[in-house]
Structures are given as structure tokens and as C-alpha cells.
């Protein structure tokens, strides 16, 4: 397997409060990684630092063979890329938000096509045709002209995922994609994400759905206090946690409601 994303010694503080300390991780092409951990442990910050929605204080992020943000130069020097350079690299990673963040003044189709048209400057007819293919695949073809306010939570999150995929990213980042959803809809979205995973999309998912992580993730990373406290194959790590903090965390969080055994 080929390495796709490589994060080295990433750190980030907010004021005096460290959120990420020296995080290193690697994601292979086609792999699905779930990041779990107690709230406030830096999961979301890690995801946002990877695509530089938040700028990390130190460390490197490498996607394929391209650095984003800081790049190491000859002689041990580090160069900071310009904002516009980072803006260009950012959509190589699709980002899905907890609160969907669909644009309410644009139709579903426009939500999906605005990025490719404005950022990638691709011709509108082509982008719209591609978007319709995506929407059809997601079972949302009849909602193309609808506005986000008319959609259910699950539909909104599917549109948000379609919006991210429309830019043909190499990697998808999900920031607690089901936390803002009603319980009965969580399952619908998780099943949908599982299909996506099975189609070979590389995914990094911050989630509280342990059962989902167990079934879908190749590897699980347990983040605690800004450190990678434990990582390993999903089944192994979740069944036989070595880290006492992880054991405690799992005993608190594992409730039957969150099951995704289908």
C-alpha cells in the first residue's frame, strides 16, 4: 500500500493551552482511519490542522508528495507557503463538517458546483453534469434544485459530502459527521459513509460512533490530551485496549444506541 497522508510532529496551542502535541500519523491510500477520544482532546483541531483550516504551530503535513503549509528546505530550513498556495492545496482534501455548513442561499446543485466552477475554473456544464452523477448516486437527484432548508439532516450531510467529493479530493476528512443528527438519522448517514469507504475512498473520520469505527475503520487512533495515546487495527484496539484511559473512555461511551451492525 502507498502512503497518502503523512503528518509529522504536528503541534498547535490556543494561547497557552496546548491542543495538539507532537502528533505523527500516516494514512495509506484507500485506508479508513477513525480518530476517537474524549471531547476536548484535540480531535477536531487535528483534522482542521491537516487541511489548514486552522494553521498548526509546528510540524509537517504531506499529502502524496506535496507538503501543505510548512515545507522543509535544504539545509534544515523550513519555508512557510503563501496563503494562496495553501488555498490551492486545501481542496485536495475534502472536509465534512459536523454542522454540515451548507450554503443556505444556494440550491443543492449550486452548493456542489460552486467550488469546482469558482476555484478550479472548470466549465459549468461539465461540472453540473458531474454533480448530477454524484447526486444520482447519493439518491438525491430530485433535490438538485431544492434549497438546504428543505432537506432533512441526513440529506444535508449527504449533500455536504457530495460538495466535498465534487472537487475530486485525494482524501476525505470527516469532523464528527453524525453528531448534529437525530439518532434515527445517524444510522442512515453511517451506512452511507460505509458504502463510500467500501468504494475505495481514503477517509479520516473523527467520530464518537465506536461500533461504526469497529466495523468500518482499518485503523483507530485514540487521542488523549493532545497526544496519540494509542493506535492500531480497529478490532484489536477496541476489543483489547491496552491504554487504561482508552479502556475508561470505551466503557463510558459504548452504549447500544450507537450500534451500526447492519
Amino acid at each position: 500500500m502507498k502512503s497518502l497522508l503523512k503528518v509529522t510532529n504536528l503541534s498547535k496551542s490556543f494561547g497557552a493551552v496546548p491542543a495538539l502535541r507532537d502528533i505523527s500519523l500516516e494514512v495509506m491510500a484507500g485506508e479508513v482511519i477513525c480518530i476517537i477520544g474524549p471531547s476536548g482532546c484535540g480531535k477536531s483541531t487535528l483534522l482542521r490542522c491537516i487541511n489548514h483550516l486552522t494553521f498548526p504551530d509546528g510540524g509537517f503535513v504531506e499529502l502524496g508528495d506535496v507538503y501543505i503549509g510548512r515545507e522543509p528546505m535544504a539545509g534544515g530550513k523550513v519555508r512557510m507557503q503563501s496563503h494562496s498556495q495553501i488555498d490551492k492545496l486545501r481542496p485536495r482534501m475534502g472536509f465534512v463538517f459536523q454542522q454540515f455548513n451548507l450554503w443556505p442561499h444556494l440550491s443543492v446543485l449550486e452548493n456542489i458546483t460552486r467550488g469546482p466552477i469558482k476555484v478550479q475554473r472548470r466549465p459549468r456544464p461539465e461540472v453540473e453534469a458531474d454533480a448530477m452523477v454524484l447526486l444520482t448516486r447519493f439518491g438525491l437527484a430530485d433535490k438538485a434544485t431544492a434549497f438546504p432548508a428543505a432537506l432533512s439532516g441526513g440529506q444535508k450531510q449527504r449533500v455536504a459530502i457530495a460538495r466535498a467529493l465534487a472537487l475530486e479530493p485525494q482524501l476525505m476528512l470527516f469532523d464528527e459527521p453524525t453528531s448534529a443528527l437525530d439518532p434515527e438519522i445517524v444510522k442512515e448517514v453511517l451506512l452511507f459513509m460505509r458504502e463510500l469507504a467500501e468504494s475505495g475512498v481514503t477517509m479520516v473520520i473523527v467520530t464518537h460512533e465506536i461500533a461504526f469505527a469497529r466495523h468500518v475503520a482499518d485503523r483507530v487512533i485514540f487521542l488523549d490530551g493532545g497526544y496519540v495515546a494509542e493506535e492500531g487495527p480497529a478490532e484489536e484496539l477496541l476489543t483489547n485496549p491496552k491504554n487504561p484511559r482508552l479502556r475508561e473512555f470505551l466503557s463510558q461511551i459504548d452504549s447500544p444506541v450507537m450500534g451500526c451492525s447492519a
Partner: protein
Amino acid sequence: MTLDFSIIVDNWQLFAKGAVLTLVIAFISIGIGFLLSIPVALMALSHRWWLRWVSGAYVEWFRNVPFIVVVYIFFYGLPFAGVRLPEAVVGTLALAIYASTYFSEVIRGAVLAVPKGQMEAARAVGMSYFMGMREIVAPQTLRLLLPPSTNTSISMIKETSILSTITVAEITYQGLVVQGATFAPFEVFMTTAVLYWLITSIFARFMHGIERRAGIAQGGNQNRHSLADKYLQIGTKRVQE
């Protein structure tokens, strides 16, 4: 004591001229003021402290100094700096700058009212900050912008009266001229006031029409019906069901 409004009829041309100039000055200075306010608001929203500081100082200065003082400073300051312009232009310029500080606060408030996630989603698909502002945030501020902009514009229409002090021949100035000639101050200034009242009322009505068309709800909480309404819902017309 008798009031004689015939002198108003005799001098209607002066009042009409004044009203036209008031409208022209208000229209131009509100337009320029709004355009100027956009960079001021963007600076106030910047993450660079010194841009925020410059914008904040500009806004605080003009918001805390009376407009009449601002007008005088422009009126004496521009010639001092070697710029000679007609009074009406000086006045329009001063009002435009004064208005820009008020509009910038309106814009800043509207942008802050758009959830942060909207811009983040724009950045996530690769848009730059400015593209995100233009494509995603700005369109969503329009409906938030309209009601407070109407109020600010009405304030600025009223501020034009102060330009009479630097001899700009708008409504108030014409009122003073007619008053000097006729010594009928009550009739003259009542007429002057009513002219402004007409202009601001018609403008407000017009803008509320636009707001309704844009689907901006008017009025506050109409679902609440309480014993306490007699005390707490004063001067708000109850909506008929």
C-alpha cells in the same frame, strides 16, 4: 397671534430648490459612504491587529465627534491643505465619510451574524478569504443589511441639515433665508421640518417595501400573548389573525 402660511406659498421655489439639493447630497453621500464603509468593515474583521486598530480608530473618532464639528473641520481644513471645493461638495464629502463609519458598523454586524461555518465551508472547497466573502458571506448579509441601512440612511438624510451652517443651500439653509426675509419663524421652520418629515417618511416606506419583497419579516415576537402585554408590548400593533 396669527400664523400666516401664505409666505410659504410665496417662497415655495426656494423650498423646492432646497429639497432637491438635500436629496441630491443625501443620495450621493449615502452612496459613497456605503462604498467607503466596505473596506472599513473588512479591516475591522481582519485578523491583523493593526488593520483592526486603524479601522477602529477611524470609526470611533467619527462616531464620537458631532457631525457639525466634522463639517467645520472639512470646511476649514480642506482650504488649509490647499484644496478648494464648492461648499456643497465639501459637505457631501464630509457626510460621506461620516456615513461610512456608521455603515461600516452595520456591515460588520451583518457579517458577524453569518455563522462562522459558512466561511469555513468556503475555505474548505479552496476559496480564498475574499472569494468566500464575495461568493458565500456577502450574499447572506444582504437581508441582514437592509433594515439597519435604512435607519442609518435616514439619520444621514437628517444630518444634511447641518450643511446649512457652511452655507450649502439645502432645505434648512433656505428656511433660514426665508425666515430672515419674512420674520415668520414658526411657519418657516414648521414647513422646513415637514419637508424633512415627508422625505424621511417616503424613504422609509419605500425601503420597507423592498424589505417586504426581500422577504424580511417585520415586527418582533407575535406569538406571545400574555397578561403582561398591557405593560410590555407598548406601541406595537398586534397582528390580526
